[in-house]
């Protein structure tokens, strides 16, 4: 009798115990200091938001993030990947800038671990044919966005000013190839990333090219130099267009005199406005965690983290996670996200990706103006910062 009572008590105790979720460590190799710190920090915040929401919504699986700052340095990114692998992470998410993501994902591929990113758009990254490499955005998506905008504005000639860094040069050359057949005249001006005086280039554009639009495939510091030079020389153009890290609230706040009417790629308007419930949940969670509004870097970080964590859960359920099944699960991804539909092709690229274009408008607002079906406002065209 006593023995039966003991067994019954033990059984009841076992049933009443909470079910412990299986925890998976995910390595985050990201620049939190150095030249790419701003973008890296935004991405990391997005990844943390994705982990927070995933852990809340999943009783069976939990994600634990293990982060190492790569200091915007390729060599340190490689050692970060190796260090995180030694800690037993099941995959990597993160990275910013193609020249850093390249060696870091080489290292993860050698270790046989999945590397998921949204920070490197260089075409060479997917040409390597790695089965473990995945990214949600690419040069093609930026190119499509710019081509769409130029078509919608009816532009007939463009001067492309581009940095000789990998991603920016790739985008400029792809754009040149895409615009030529559409009858748009393109003049190319490469510049060394170390230069700070853009007046000689802008003067060539002003006196020789005489285009309708100046397009900048560059980074923040270059944008400031180019627009400043253009403000001094005042070429007779109708618009100044850039790509990443330009249509941001930070740029509007830091350079209020340079940004008016300038276009840049952006998934989000400012102030942030989400139409879908998922977007609103992301924004609320992000605001609760970091006490600020999300930007598009955080949005990319969120999406890549979300897709990876979901695939980890599916792979764990299927019992393939420790047998290299995570890459196969990721390849099955086919869903709408905050950056549009995501699927992965054989090279790990997302062929559906297309950026949107935002324009700095009055009152420090960023309005999504292209593509028209996604627009939150109308483009000011012609419109210049001077």
């Amino acid at each position, binding site marked *: 009798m006593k023995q039966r009572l003991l067994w019954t008590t033990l059984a009841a105790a076992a049933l009443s115990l909470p079910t412990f979720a299986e925890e998976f460590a995910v390595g985050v190799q990201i620049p939190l*200091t*150095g*030249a*790419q*710190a*701003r973008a890296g920090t935004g991405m990391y915040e997005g990844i943390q938001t994705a982990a927070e929401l995933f852990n809340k919504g999943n009783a069976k699986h939990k994600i634990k993030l293990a982060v190492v700052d790569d200091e*915007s340095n390729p060599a340190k990114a490689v050692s970060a990947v190796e260090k995180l692998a030694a800690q037993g992470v099941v995959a990597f998410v993160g990275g910013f800038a193609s020249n850093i993501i390249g060696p870091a994902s080489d290292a993860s591929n050698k270790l046989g671990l999945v590397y998921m990113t949204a920070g490197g758009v260089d075409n060479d990254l997917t040409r390597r044919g790695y089965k473990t490499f995945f990214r949600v955005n690419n040069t093609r998506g930026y190119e499509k966005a710019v081509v769409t905008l130029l078509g919608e504005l009816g532009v007939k000639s463009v001067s492309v000013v581009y940095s*000789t860094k990998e991603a920016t040069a790739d985008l400029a050359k792809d754009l040149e190839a895409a615009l030529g057949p559409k009858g748009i005249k393109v003049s190319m*001006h*490469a*510049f*060394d990333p*170390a*230069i*700070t*005086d853009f*007046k*000689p*280039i802008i*003067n*060539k554009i002003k*006196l*020789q090219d005489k285009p309708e639009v100046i397009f900048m495939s560059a980074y*923040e*510091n270059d944008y*400031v*130099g180019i627009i*400043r030079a253009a*403000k*001094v*020389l*005042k070429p007779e153009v109708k618009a100044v267009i850039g790509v990443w890290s330009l249509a941001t609230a*930070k740029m509007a706040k*830091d*350079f*209020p*005199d340079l940004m008016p009417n300038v276009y840049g790629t952006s998934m989000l308007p400012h102030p942030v406005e989400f139409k879908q419930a998922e977007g609103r949940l992301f924004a609320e969670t992000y605001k609760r965690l970091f006490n600020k509004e999300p930007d598009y870097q955080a949005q990319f970080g969120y999406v890549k983290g979300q897709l990876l964590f979901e695939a980890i859960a599916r792979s764990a359920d299927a019992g393939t996670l420790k047998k290299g099944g995570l890459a196969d699960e990721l390849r099955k991804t086919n869903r709408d996200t905050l950056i549009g539909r995501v699927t992965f092709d054989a090279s790990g690229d997302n062929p559906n990706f297309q950026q949107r274009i935002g324009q700095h408008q009055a009152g420090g607002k960023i309005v999504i103006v292209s593509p028209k079906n996604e627009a939150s406002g109308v483009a000011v065209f012609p419109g210049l910062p001077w």
Partner: protein
Amino acid sequence: MAELILQALYSGLLNGGVYALMAIGLALSFGTMRVINLAHGELVLLAAYMAYVVESRLDLSPLAAIPLAMAVACAGSALVYLLVARIRKNRELNSLMLSFAIGIIITNAVLLIWSGDIHSTGSVSLQEAVQLGSLYSMRSELYGFLASLVLVTLLWQWLAKSWYGRAVRAVSSQRDAAKLMGINPAKTELISFLVAGLLAGCAGVALYSSSVIQPSLGHALTVKAFIITVLAGVGSVPGVLAASVLLGITEALTVTLWSSAVQELAGMLLFLLVLFVLPNGLFGAARRRA
């Protein structure tokens, strides 16, 4: 085409002025102590961040930051000197490593304090376009060039005519002999580092007023300043100005006549060419021939 070339010459001239401001401090400390201060660019950058602080926190023009920038760069330069002066063995090589390490510390301190964001002046007045005939520039570039001319002239006069200036030249020329003549070499070297700090302070404000700053910029500034110092010929003040202007014009003409992608390469080719023809630099060789 003529208009393009004229604008390139003008832009190169103005850029050369700012380059001279950045390089002259390094040339001075190199000339006096035979020590290459590899933290010089970081000191210029630190001064530039002082201009950013004064503008963003106090809502004043970056030009109002000149005294603070000079004080901070002077303090930094004096610290470099005091540490380098403690090196007893193999000073040339060990001072390189020491000043390089100081540069890394300054870069990371800047990063910690002001983050990795880019900064530049928001002053409308400094960014305003100034037109001289068909030539354009920002007002800040013109100010930077004029400041450079004035400071280089003052430094030249100081070195030629003041007691301390002559002491610096004496220590630079023959340290032991200078000591026998009653000059305190340590004090003189410290003074040259302090003057280098003052100039770095001005260079930092000029840089912030006309360009974009970020924490990783310091090393590139040191490299450019070093190239100019060697190009000029060690110890030559007018040589620094001439080399800076030559470099600025070469870069601008390269962009105009060829491509901006090879601008830095053109600067390095000029450097190699001058050293090949005149191994002591532009003015070093002239003096030796004389």
